């Protein structure tokens, strides 16, 4: 059969020149996405396209601070993406808490919960800095060192332990069921009327 490892340079070239972003803008850095996508700092020349479905996307931009509420949704979306997938963290909040270093609602060190490949410093980084970060990401993919997804799969117990410590055990079912008593009671009221 064909040995696909011979085609690694071509496949890495294709992977680095057509990254699709999950259209999930967390935090305050979502405002830096439109300048990148429109005519001034056009990122479509590199093949990057925003894509609303997580099943088809490979790049996840974590732009800015992450609250525990958002982190639950980010983890669920990240696990829905097929391998290989990359994470790009913007700003100083995912690194050490940034401006919210003493806030009860901002995650201080994101690398404990989700593997990050490239981190871009700034508060918010300007579009030129984000382009620099994207270039570094493309270099990492080309040399085969962008292995956040491999780290997640191999060290899943470490990540899961940190997530469970933060959220409590069984957080997925609890989050999915949280609103049901409130919605069900409302429905009972409507039916009785």
């Amino acid at each position: 059969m064909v040995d696909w490892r011979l085609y690694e340079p071509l496949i890495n070239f294709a992977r680095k020149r057509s990254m699709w972003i999950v259209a999930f803008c967390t935090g305050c850095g979502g405002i830096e996405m439109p300048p990148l996508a429109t005519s001034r700092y056009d990122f479509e020349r590199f093949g990057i396209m925003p894509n609303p479905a997580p099943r088809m996307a490979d790049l996840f931009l974590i732009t800015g601070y992450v609250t525990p509420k958002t982190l639950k949704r980010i983890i669920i979306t990240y696990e829905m993406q097929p391998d290989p997938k990359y994470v790009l963290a913007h700003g100083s909040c995912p690194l050490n808490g940034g401006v919210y270093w003493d806030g009860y609602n901002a995650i201080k060190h994101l690398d404990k919960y989700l593997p990050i490949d490239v981190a871009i410093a700034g508060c918010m980084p300007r579009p030129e800095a984000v382009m620099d970060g994207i270039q570094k990401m493309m270099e990492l993919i080309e040399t085969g060192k962008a292995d956040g997804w491999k780290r997640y799969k191999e060290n899943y117990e470490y990540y899961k332990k940190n997530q469970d410590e933060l959220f409590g055990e069984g957080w997925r079912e609890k989050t999915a069921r949280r609103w049901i008593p409130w919605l069900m009671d409302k429905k009972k009221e409507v039916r009785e009327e």
Partner: protein
Amino acid sequence: MTLEKEENVVRQILEKAPYAEGKVRRARRIEFHIPAERIREFLTLLKESNFETMMQITAVDWIKDGEIELVYQMWSYTHAVHAFVKTRIPREVEKAKVPSVKDIYPVAETYERDAHEFYKVYFEGNEKLEMPWILEDEDREAGVCHRKDFDMLSYVKRKYKILDRFEEDKEDYVI
């Protein structure tokens, strides 16, 4: 500029509500202080004198007086005047109860949920106080609130286990 319009508004309202004290702070801003049990009457009166919207219910924690001050912020489109309506209620969790105003201003339901979650003020008559709002379940169970006697920094250190820019023995720090 004269503050005639605001003074007219204050005078009109104080004629109908003798238990209140009111004054004009500056142009377009007036302030009333009322006792806590008359809040519903007063807000009904405001609604009839053309204060159409409630903008926010803010809670202030006066720990040395032992009271929580609730500020109802009202805006009137016809007079173009922003009114503060301030009441004080005792601070202990069992005694911090105030009747709800959600039938006079329906939007007050959301703001009362806000004040309840962060300051533990109970609004009687609003049955949706426990609906999920801003705090997650694990924070609610740990009793996170914005009152001044809740030690927020040690809670953050317990939750995230990193608070590397805080040194315990410094009074004021430059980051």
